[in-house]
């Protein structure tokens, strides 16, 4: 069945912000409790023993079992993801992308010329480069159409690297938020987080949403309004209001990941 909408579908940015009058008051109280829960949980897992090196927990650490056939973890998949985020960053400041692959490469190369991803790019043959360029263009087209214009007054910040040290510095929660909108200084909750992935959305995306919300809450002391994930493979957008239950599940995800990493470093 085909359904025709009377008005165009809201963009990702509009869906994230929603209506101002429906936003709850900013929650500045939950952060301390979450931190205390995490600290207690860390002590239970480690039983007071200190690891030789700090245990770093990222969104990739939250996977229950390592995925071997995930396209996103292949070299091309990683490159595609990295280049798409560069394009998202350019779009967030109103830059007109004319040649998606070349623009993304220019932007990425000026800040990263070494590492596994750079090596992966160097190893690609001409056919693979052409395939990557087509892939990036296709994903960018999906993202650009869905994203909409990012208004300057909504304070867009992109590729934010954040971290939280817990357990006396023995456990580090390291996160990168692809796009963040809103301010932590307002009376109503207004911070929204967007994670862009080139894979279809699945359980991993749910866990990533919770992780982003948890780390942001711990870092700023203010609970964000929404956490979301967008797949440029399917055009799907998942938006979750950040509430107590979501944050509690985030805490459980982190402690489970810590347990796995502690047993099998």
């Amino acid at each position: 069945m085909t359904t025709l909408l009377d008005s165009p579908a809201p963009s990702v940015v509009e869906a994230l912000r929603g209506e101002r009058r429906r936003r709850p008051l900013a929650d500045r109280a939950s952060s301390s409790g979450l931190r205390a829960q995490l600290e207690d949980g860390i002590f239970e897992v480690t039983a007071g023993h200190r690891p030789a090196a700090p245990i770093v927990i990222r969104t990739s650490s939250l996977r229950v079992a390592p995925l071997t056939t995930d396209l996103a973890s292949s070299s091309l998949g990683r490159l595609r993801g990295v280049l798409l985020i560069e394009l998202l960053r350019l779009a967030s400041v109103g830059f007109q992308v004319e040649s998606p692959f070349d623009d993304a490469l220019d932007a990425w190369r000026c800040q990263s010329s070494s590492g596994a991803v750079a090596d992966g790019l160097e190893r690609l043959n001409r056919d693979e480069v052409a395939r990557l360029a087509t892939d990036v263009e296709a994903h960018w087209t999906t993202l650009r159409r869905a994203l909409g214009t990012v208004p300057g007054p909504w304070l867009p910040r992109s590729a934010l690297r954040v971290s939280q040290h817990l357990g006396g510095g023995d456990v580090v929660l390291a996160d990168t938020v692809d796009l963040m909108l809103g301010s932590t200084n307002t009376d109503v909750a207004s911070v929204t987080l967007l994670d862009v992935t080139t894979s279809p959305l699945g359980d991993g995306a749910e866990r990533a949403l919770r992780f982003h919300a948890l780390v942001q809450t711990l870092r700023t002391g203010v609970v964000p309004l929404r956490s979301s994930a967008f797949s440029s493979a399917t055009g799907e957008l998942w938006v979750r209001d950040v509430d107590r239950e979501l944050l509690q599940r985030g805490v459980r995800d982190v402690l489970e990941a810590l347990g796995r990493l502690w047993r099998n470093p």
Partner: protein
Amino acid sequence: MTTLAHRRLDAHALELLVIDAPNVSSALTDDHRRSLSARFRAVATVGHRRLDAWSVEQAGRTTKGFAWSPRTARRIIGNAAVARAEGQPGLTLIDAVRDEVTDQLLRATSGYSRTGSLAHWLASAPNPVIGLVSAEALNWAIQLRELAETVSSPWKVAGSDSYYDVASARTTLRGRRDLVVAHEGTRVVVRVRSGAPGKSAGPGLRADLTVDTLADPLGVAPARLIGLWPDAGVCLSVDGSMDDLRAGARDLVRTAVAQRRTLTALAA
């Protein structure tokens, strides 16, 4: 005894640190300056020596040469954008960043920029790189203004870092500062860093405190110097006490000594 304090950077941390800052600051006299100069002169140097909090934190170890990138350019453009937006009510930060980038490009076009300057690098960079510089600068500017807006006392963006040329010692000291807050007749200096503070963040903060005091025409120390690491949600602070000023000066001289040792070893 040091006054170094460490706390989480929540919504009220900066305001509390400003309000709690001591009302009386220490001051460095001409004798202090002469003594510091003599100590630096005693550490021989071949060329001109530049020391800052980073070199103190790295214990004088040489790091790879500076190169412009979106991350190294963001603080200059971001700080200038916040200052511009404060001066022009109604101007959004994103427009202020664009204006700052345009100003840099105009400077390069009109021939006022020297080789190696930010304007020169931006003028030769491809368009997507300029876009990425704008994105990084906007991240920085939003973060800085969000922090500044939590303070009720009047604040302004520092026009530049503080610099002090040590007399006859071929040494320049640089102190990092991003915001200057006026509080009850004293000043509180705030500096923002990315990442998380390392174990030597305290000595780095004291070095900045000492340089800021030396750069003051009357030698009056800031009531408090606050270091913010918003990426990690952490802040450190140190008061402008004579003990901390002395410790900062000692660390700077030690860094000069360590630098000389490293260079001597490399030459051998």
